Each structure stands twice: as structure tokens, then as C-alpha cells.
């Protein structure tokens, strides 16, 4: 689940960093590295599964043994093109691979195969939505395909680093934005939106903890109206919250530096979430000299119209279209529609719940949508958060949710009883009707029994009845509470209200 945090500053006002000499604006651009969902690697037949034994998912190609040749995985091209189409980008009919040369222990060839001058996907844009409902368009500059590197582990031995090449050669899409974001919240919303789209179309699982989605964050500051300042790149940030924190800290650092007479130098930095600061990577002077040149082992990547058409055909409904449909067809508020379309799994769960709820109650989806949406985003999401679970392993199924909503709708359960039943469902996984039956949690709507309860409460509180009749209206709530208590919480609140009004009349 990826929901952006609410920032303290109202987003309709521009986000500014206040320095001693005046306000500064932040400029942010992101390079998001998204692992392509594929069974095998970009240029070899080794598997991509997460968490295998070290070096068990490596081919001789990935290990850069002499004489090995890369062969392009068509599925990775398909996923990059689908992603480009989903982000409204142009697709380049001809693109090319290049070698990016650098030396590191987990890069066995001494170069990464990437796309430098001619990426497979060109310009596009996505629309993001901020917490206050403001919508903004963020430009996409390009998407290119490249290989991931291996993994170095530095803490298993005092003087050695251990290298696992299982990830080496796994396909990544690098999605490069325009420097169009002006606040941490916008960057957070951009990544959340991007992630929702990738997950909806199935080109990346979006799992930030496992590193399937991570971002290099470019930050610069300027006085409003001035040209772009010098940027710093914060490498490899792997959560939306950290991205926002890193931007805020880095912008503050740059403003303080400029105001104390210093100059921002273009450099690569790391974000340390524990200390809440970014710091420079000890960079060697040659670190950025990648000496790109065309990859001689791979032909140009040519894509024809039929391939693009098939990719387009394969795209499901995108989150933004789904959000608009929820508003227009189901009558949901922009807020609820936004929350329910932030994650494809959650959208599908909601649609299942909604279909089932409408069926059980014999009503149109539009008539029950708001109740279902409120229950799911309220009670269910709160419970999942408490249990630290995602929607995929929710202890309650959509069918059970719909049954609970039906019991509420037909008056079998009152609101408070439904919450009790829901808690038991979470613990036991039982169906709500069975729980209500077995534990006697059905709402009491038997007029005779309730009248008796009302009568005994009034008899026991004759003094308060007198006060009420003398004009102390506030006591009505007290009587309702007493009758509810006497019924063990099971009385129908509406009926108790009516009967009390009559009795006190």
C-alpha cells in the first residue's frame, strides 16, 4: 500500500524553503528504476526470482565469461513498451543499446548494457493528485531498458565484501521524469501514481522493500523566478516516505549552504534515514566518466506497428480512468475514488465487494457503493494497518464483507454490533451471520422487550425523569445509554430513541 503522507504545508500554496535571506523554491526530478516482471533476465535465460541461494540464478552470460553473447528477452521489450503507452509516451520504432563503463565488484563485465542516446520509449506525462485535490501534470522524459547489477554484502566478513550475482542482468526500466516537481509531496504523489500504474498493467510489482522500485532523486533550489540551480543526486532511495524526507533535508542543506556563502556542487549523495541527512558519497574524480559506446553484441532494437498495437491492446483499465469511472458511475467522492484506485489489488477487492454487496441486497451498485467504500477504506483498512497486512492477505474476504454490509442494511446488526462482529471475523475468519447467531449479537428489535427495558430504566431513574420533564433535554442521551447498556448493546438505537420519546413524551 502506498499512500502519500499529508504534508504540513497546504499544497495549494507553493512549497517554499524559508532561508534567512528569503524563500527558496525546490526543483525535483526523479529517475525511477523499476524491475520488469519477467521470468528470465534481460539478456540471459537465468531466472529472476527474489531470494535464491547466492549465485544460483546466474548464467555464464551474467557472469561475463569470455565469449558469451547477450540475447534480448522479448517480454522485457513488451513490458517497456506497455509501460510507455500507459504513461502516454511516444514509442521509438528504433532504439539501441549502449555500454556504460564503470568498475565495481558486482558488475562482472565492467560495463552495464543500457540505452543512452536512443531509448526505447520517449516523452510522455502523467497526472498526479495531491491531498487537497489539486491535480498536476508531471512530464516523463524517457524510459530505457538496462541490466541490474549484482549485490555486494559488506557486513558478513571483517575485511572482505561478498558478491551475489543473482540480480545481475535482471531487466530494469529506468523511468526519467522532467524536473517538474516542486515539493516533497509532489514527488511522493508522482512515485505513488507511477507505482499504481506499473502494478495495474503488471510491468513491475512495485515492491519497494525488495528493491523492485527505487529512485534516484535530483534536487536543486532557486529563488522563485530564477533559472534552475545546481542539482545533487540522491541515490537509491527505496520508500516514498524516505524520498520525501530526503528532498526536504537536501533542500534545507542547499539553502543553508547558499546563504552561508557556499556553492552547491553537482555530486552524488546518500540519504541516511536514521540521522535524517544526506551526505556526499566519497566520489572518485572519474566516477562519472562512463565512456558510453554502442553495444556491438546487440543489433538495433526495431519495433513495428503491429507489436505496438498488440501492446496497447493488452493494457487494462488504468488507475486514472478507474478513478474517473468510480466518480461518474458509482457516485463516489474524489477522495474515496482516489484512495480506492491507488492500488490495483485494492481496486479489484473493492469491485468484488461491491458486486457482491449489490447482489445480496438486490440493489444497483451505485446505490451501495458509498457504504461499501466507506467500510473498506475505514474499518477494513484500519484493521489491516493494525495487523500489518496487505489486502492480498486480508483475514476477511470480499464475500464476508458484503455479508456484513447486508446484515447492517437489513437491520440485523446495528453499527456498534457490526463493529463487534467485524472484530470477531478478523480473529476467527468466520462468517458474520454465523457469528451474530452463535454469539447472540443480533440487534434486538422486539418492541415488547425494548418497552420493558425502557420502563425499567425510567422507573430506576425517577429523579432524572423529573429533571428531563422540567426541561433538561440533555438527559435524553443518558436514557438512551442506559437502555442500550441494559440490552447489552444489542438494542436497535433507532427503536430505543422512538420508544423513549414516546415514554417521556
Amino acid at each position, binding site marked *: 500500500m502506498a499512500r502519500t503522507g499529508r504534508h504540513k504545508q497546504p499544497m495549494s500554496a507553493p512549497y517554499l524553503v524559508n532561508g534567512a535571506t528569503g524563500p527558496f523554491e525546490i526543483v525535483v526530478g526523479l529517475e525511477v528504476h523499476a524491475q520488469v516482471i*519477467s521470468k528470465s533476465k534481460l539478456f540471459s535465460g537465468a531466472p529472476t526470482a527474489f531470494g535464491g541461494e547466492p*549465485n544460483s540464478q546466474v548464467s555464464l552470460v551474467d557472469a561475463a565469461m569470455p565469449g558469451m553473447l547477450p540475447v534480448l528477452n522479448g517480454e522485457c521489450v513488451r513490458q517497456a513498451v506497455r509501460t510507455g503507452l500507459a504513461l502516454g509516451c511516444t514509442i521509438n520504432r528504433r532504439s539501441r543499446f549502449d555500454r556504460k563503463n564503470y568498475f565495481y565488484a558486482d558488475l562482472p563485465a565492467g560495463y552495464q548494457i543500457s540505452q543512452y542516446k536512443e531509448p526505447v520509449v520517449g516523452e510522455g506525462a502523467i497526472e498526479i493528485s495531491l491531498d487537497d485535490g489539486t491535480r498536476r501534470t508531471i512530464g516523463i522524459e524517457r524510459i530505457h531498458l538496462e541490466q541490474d547489477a549484482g549485490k555486494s554484502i*559488506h557486513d558478513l*566478513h571483517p*575485511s572482505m*565484501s*561478498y558478491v551475489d550475482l543473482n540480480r545481475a542482468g535482471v531487466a530494469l526500466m529506468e523511468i526519467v521524469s522532467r524536473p517538474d516537481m516542486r515539493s516533497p509531496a509532489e514527488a511522493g504523489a508522482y512515485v505513488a501514481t507511477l507505482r499504481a500504474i506499473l502494478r495495474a498493467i503488471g510491468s513491475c510489482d512495485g515492491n519497494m522493500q525488495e528493491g523492485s522500485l527505487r529512485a534516484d532523486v535530483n534536487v536543486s533550489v532557486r529563488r522563485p523566478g530564477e533559472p534552475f540551480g545546481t542539482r545533487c543526486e540522491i541515490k537509491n532511495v527505496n520508500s516514498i516516505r524516505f524520498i520525501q524526507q530526503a528532498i526536504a533535508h537536501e533542500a534545507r542543506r542547499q539553502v543553508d549552504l547558499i546563504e552561508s556563502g557556499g556553492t552547491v556542487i553537482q555530486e552524488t549523495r546518500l540519504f541516511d534515514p536514521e540521522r535524517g541527512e544526506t551526505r556526499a558519497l566519497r566520489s572518485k574524480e*572519474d566516477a562519472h566518466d562512463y565512456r558510453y559506446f554502442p553495444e556491438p553484441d546487440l543489433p538495433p532494437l526495431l519495433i513495428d506497428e503491429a507489436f505496438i498495437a498488440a501492446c496497447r491492446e493488452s493494457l487494462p483499465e488504468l488507475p486514472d480512468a478507474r478513478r474517473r469511472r468510480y466518480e461518474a458511475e458509482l457516485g463516489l467522492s474524489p477522495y474515496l475514488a482516489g484512495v480506492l484506485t491507488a492500488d490495483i489489488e485494492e481496486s479489484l477487492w473493492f469491485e468484488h465487494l461491491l458486486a457482491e454487496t449489490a447482489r445480496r441486497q438486490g440493489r444497483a451498485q451505485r446505490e451501495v457503493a458509498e457504504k461499501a467504500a466507506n467500510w473498506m477504506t475505514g474499518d477494513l483498512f484500519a484493521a489491516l494497518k493494525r495487523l500489518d497486512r496487505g489486502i492480498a492477505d486480508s483475514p476477511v474476504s470480499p464475500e464476508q464483507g458484503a455479508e456484513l454490509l447486508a446484515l447492517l442494511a437489513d437491520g440485523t446488526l446495528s453499527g456498534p454490533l457490526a463493529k463487534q462482529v467485524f472484530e470477531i471475523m478478523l480473529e476467527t475468519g468466520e462468517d458474520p451471520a454465523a457469528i451474530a447467531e452463535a454469539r447472540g449479537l443480533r440487534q434486538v428489535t422486539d418492541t415488547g422487550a425494548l418497552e420493558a427495558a425502557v420502563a425499567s430504566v425510567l422507573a430506576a431513574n425517577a429523579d432524572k425523569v423529573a429533571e428531563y420533564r422540567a426541561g433538561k433535554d440533555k438527559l435524553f442521551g443518558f436514557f438512551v445509554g442506559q437502555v442500550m447498556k441494559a440490552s447489552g448493546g444489542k438494542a436497535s438505537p433507532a427503536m430505543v430513541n422512538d420508544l423513549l420519546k414516546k415514554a417521556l413524551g
Partner: protein
Amino acid sequence: MAVDAETVARVARLARLRVGDEDVARLAAELNRILGWIDQLQAVDTEGVAPLDQVIPFARGWREDEVTDGGIAADILVNAPASAHGFFAVPRVIE
């Protein structure tokens, strides 16, 4: 473009090649001779001619997305100067 001693030393460092001071002047001269040939090629007018990426027109040489490899950790590690617990073991690379 002429290659000087400094460029030779820099390219060698980037490629992790050990080049002794006594070799630098000779290598610079050799590289400059190669660049001289490139200059001859550059003299040809290629205005309006697309770059030639491949000589033989190549149909799409894509693989199906199938797992056909892997599971050979021992082979992968066999030439490594050092390994431990299935990992390559290299001199520590962070300070």
C-alpha cells in the same frame, strides 16, 4: 584530437590497466596513429548518410521469456580467486 600522456594514464586507470610511466609515451604515439586513421575516415562527406549499425539486415533476434539457465553456482565460482558461502569474496569495497 591528440592524445597526451595524461589522457593515456587516465584511460588506463579507468580500465584498471597497469601502465608504467615508461610505456606512456609509446602508447600515446600509437593511439595518435590510430586516431590519425580515424581522421582520414572523418574526411569523407557523410552528410545525409544514416549510421551503419549492422552490415547484415537482422530479423528480430529476441528470446522467449523462458528460464533455460542458472543453477550452476559452482561453475560460476570456479575461477574466482576467493569465494565463501556461495558468494564471490573480494577485498572490501567500502570504507
